[in-house]
């Protein structure tokens, strides 16, 4: 009798704990989702970087997957964005250092005209390829909101880090070290 009672009590405890746990987990998950709802299909560190193909100013296609085995420093920018313009020369200098170590810089301009992008590139004498996302499809695929945003992709094609806002030359150097192939 007592044994039976104890067993019943234990079952009840397990049952109640399970129900409460499931419900609390559901609430927790919902709150977590709502807190991160600003970026709906969130790209996260560790995700595979979505592949894309964009043409640069010379009309050459750049496919992200072509750079597999190299670290890719993917920078989204626009000519109107002042912090973007500020970090460009530093990126160019660090690209000079790291390009022989297997780091590629790809600057993705958001839907501006060839003229604007070309004059910007000429003005700053940029040596890395600049591609233009004419329909904002890559921007949408990467869910880029503020500019500049830099996505650091390691040689395995996974996202190593996402940086929003301006970077100093020190930052850029450190990030390139991070994604440099071994």
């Amino acid at each position: 009798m007592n044994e039976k009672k104890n067993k019943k009590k234990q079952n009840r405890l397990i049952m109640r704990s399970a129900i409460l746990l499931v419900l609390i987990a559901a609430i927790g998950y919902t709150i977590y989702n709502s807190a991160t709802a600003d970026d709906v299909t969130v790209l996260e560190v560790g995700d595979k970087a979505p592949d894309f193909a964009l043409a640069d100013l010379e009309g050459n296609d750049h496919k992200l997957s072509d750079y597999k085995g190299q670290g890719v420093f993917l920078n989204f920018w626009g000519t109107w964005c002042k912090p973007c313009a500020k970090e460009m020369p530093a990126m160019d200098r660090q690209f000079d250092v790291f390009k022989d170590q297997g780091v590629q810089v790809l600057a993705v301009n958001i839907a501006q005209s060839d003229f604007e992008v070309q004059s910007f590139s000429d003005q700053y004498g940029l040596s890395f390829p600049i591609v233009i996302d004419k329909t904002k499809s890559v921007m949408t695929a990467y869910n880029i909101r503020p500019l500049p945003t830099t996505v650091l992709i390691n040689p395995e094609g996974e996202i190593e880090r996402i940086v929003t806002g301006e970077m100093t030359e020190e930052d850029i150097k450190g990030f390139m070290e991070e994604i440099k192939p071994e």
Partner: protein
Amino acid sequence: MEKIQCQCGHLNPPGTVLCEACGRSLTEKEQKSKLVDMRYEGTARRSQTYNKSIIDKIWNFFSSVKVGVSLIVLLLVAAAIGTILPQKAYIPATTAAEIKAYYTDVYGSVGRVYHFLGFHDMYSSFWFILLVGLLAISLIVASLDRFVPLYRSLKNQRVLRHISFMNKQRIFADGPGADDSLQKAEAKLKELKYKVTTDKNGLLAEKGRFSRWGPYVNHIGLIIFLFGVMLRMMPGFYVDESLWLREGETRAIPEAPGYSLESKGFELETYTGEDDEAVFNEAIDRVGSVAKNYQTDIVLYQKPEDSLPGATDLEKVKESSIRVNEPLKFDGYAIYQMDFRLDELKAMKFQLTNKETEESLGELTIDLINPEKTYEFENGATVNLLGYYPDFSGFENGEPQTATPLPNNPGFLVEMKTPETPDGETSFITIKNTVEPFGENQYKLAFQAAETRDVSGLTIRKDRTLPILGLGGLIFMIGVAQGMYFNHRRFWIQQKADGEILLAGHTNKNWFGLKKDLDQVTEYASLPAYVDQQEEIEKAEKLESEEQS
């Protein structure tokens, strides 16, 4: 706590008010009252009975109706406060910092507190979701806690109840009956669609027991509804995005991977007031113009399966128009015409003129969306575009700046070369003025005309949770109907050896209907007249208070 043994010998779970078997009152309070409390059939709400481990205590907390009602009141108050100032979606600010500043600037310290507490985006604030979640837990726990014992109790009903149970029912009769009263009552009750069970000298007639499940069905509906709302926060279930699309532009559709939309043109039609539109004349006179149609002509593209974002090999899916209330529908998405902006600059036409003679060397048109580098004239003159600043906002270190990528206030740095001025003259042109940085020029670009384009404000919607919300709503309504429009009616009748009839009746609502049924049975089976004991009590109380006054 120990089990309670009733005088009849039955062992009841602790907390039971009325013996599960015979119906005798088990608590002192119950024994003293004139009518029994039939809520949950006098069974013990399960959580009241055990209160030992921490889990039991949490369970007990959520099982309380007081807690549930408090949560509902809290939600109501919060929702009411949330309507005092506009939600963030309805204020003219987009970034987090702007929104914060807006509330402080416009509504002062009240706005600051409002924003700080998350009322500006209430449905997404963690405390609102938490409250709704706690309410969901309360619904589930409270329902389980009441449904299980109630179900058990109604399933194991005994036919023969103790007299102390019967004479404390609201409807009670007691008196001599005919020999065949019991059989006749059974026949009549069956005719009235009661389910009748007999035992020795008694019967139990029951109808509409399922109405007792109404509240629980109703709660299941609510839980499903809340689950659907929860799914909205998961990626892929719910999309509500906006897209500003300019005429001639092709843009990837946000949250619709692989799809792009091109605007072929935006059209705003107004009523002319002529012919059969004459009815609008009065309104047109009053307000100036009346819109007839907002329409964006679009082409929908999809990228081929093996193609990548950014690739230009888009496949045309369809060409159609989006009008108000006539969205473009594809693949679970709907794109609505929501807003528009007319006449954004698209191209500007200039004339290259000699300032002195006003002689023109020809015209050039600069496409503001995709400007060219060099413009050549027939007589050998050229204009080179050195810099283009679509939204010129001033100089910084002598460098012209642009605030946005949109051609709101275009500025051009040009170099003009003519046979007369082969070295070239430089000029910085904006809509308002022209600067000649390297001294007086002989030539100028004189503004002639501007081409404009319209912008469509579109909304992209997808809602996979609608069927779930619909199902939840339907079940909720079924539960409401079940509990409201049907009643659980019961009669207990016993005939003692001396022919005396004991009768008790109970329903969870609509006593009038119960009495109508009983009137028919009483007449047919010659049962003793019944008394509505509650009415008697009320009458007595009324009389008493009248005497006192």
